[in-house]
C-alpha cells in the first residue's frame, strides 16, 4: 500500500528561477492553483480548485507555511475536506531544491497523511495482537491434538 507521494523533477533552470515559480503568487497560480500564498512562516493561505465530490473534497486546500529556506526548501501543511471546516485530509507538502549541472533538481514530498499515522499505529498494535492470538491458537491446536490422541 502506498502511503507517501514523491516526485523528482529536473528543470533546466537555476534554483532561484524554480524558487520564483514556487513562491510568487502570480506564477504559482499559473501552473498550480489560485492562491494567496506568501513565503512567510506561519502565513495561512488557501488553494482553490474544482471540488471533487467523489473524494469528499470541496475544492479548498487549507495551508500554513511551515518552513522557508530561500532557494532550498519550502514546506506547508495541506488540509482539505468536504466543507464546513471538516478536515479529512491532513498532510504536508515539502519542496526541496538542489542545484545540479545546468539546472535544478526539484523534489516534491507529499506525506504525513494523518490517517496513516493511525494506520501505522494500528498495524503495530495489530502485530502485537496477532502474536497473542497465535499463541492462543497454538495452545488451542495443541490441546485439541492432545485430546485427539487420547481419544484414539
Amino acid at each position: 500500500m502506498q502511503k507517501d507521494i514523491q516526485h523528482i523533477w529536473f528543470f533546466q533552470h537555476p534554483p532561484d528561477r524554480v524558487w520564483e515559480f514556487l513562491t510568487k503568487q502570480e506564477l504559482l497560480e499559473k501552473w498550480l492553483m489560485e492562491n494567496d500564498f506568501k513565503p512567510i512562516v506561519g502565513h495561512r493561505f488557501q488553494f482553490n480548485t474544482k471540488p471533487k465530490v467523489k473524494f469528499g473534497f470541496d475544492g479548498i486546500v487549507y495551508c500554513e507555511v511551515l518552513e522557508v529556506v530561500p532557494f532550498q526548501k519550502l514546506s506547508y501543511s495541506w488540509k482539505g475536506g468536504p466543507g464546513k471546516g471538516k478536515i479529512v485530509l491532513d498532510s504536508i507538502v515539502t519542496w526541496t531544491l538542489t542545484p545540479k549541472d545546468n539546472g535544478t533538481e526539484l523534489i516534491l514530498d507529499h506525506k504525513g497523511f494523518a490517517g496513516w499515522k493511525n494506520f501505522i499505529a494500528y498495524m503495530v498494535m495489530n502485530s502485537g495482537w496477532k502474536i497473542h492470538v497465535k499463541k492462543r491458537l497454538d495452545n488451542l491446536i495443541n490441546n485439541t491434538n492432545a485430546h485427539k490422541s487420547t481419544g484414539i
Partner: protein
Amino acid sequence: MMLSKERLTINALAGNFDMSRPAVSKHIKVLHSTGFVSIEDIGRERYCTLNEEGFNQLQNWIHYFDRFWNKKLKKLEVLMNQHTKTKRKK
C-alpha cells in the same frame, strides 16, 4: 485484522489480547476517530466493525494527488521553458 470478518464487542476483543479492556477501548476510540472502525451500540453492548471505506478513502486521496502532482509538474516545466524563451527574446 480480527475485525475484518466479524463484528465483535469490545469485551470480546479485549478477551483476545494481553491488554486491559480500557486499553483496548482506547485503541478502538483512536481507530474510530479516524474512520477506520465503526462502533454500533446494540442493547447494552458496543460492537466494532472494521470500516474498509476508511482505508480506501485514504488510498483514493493518495492516488489522486500522485496524479495531480505529476500533471502540475509537467505544466510547470512547460511554463518555465516558455517564460525563459520570451525573456530571452526581449
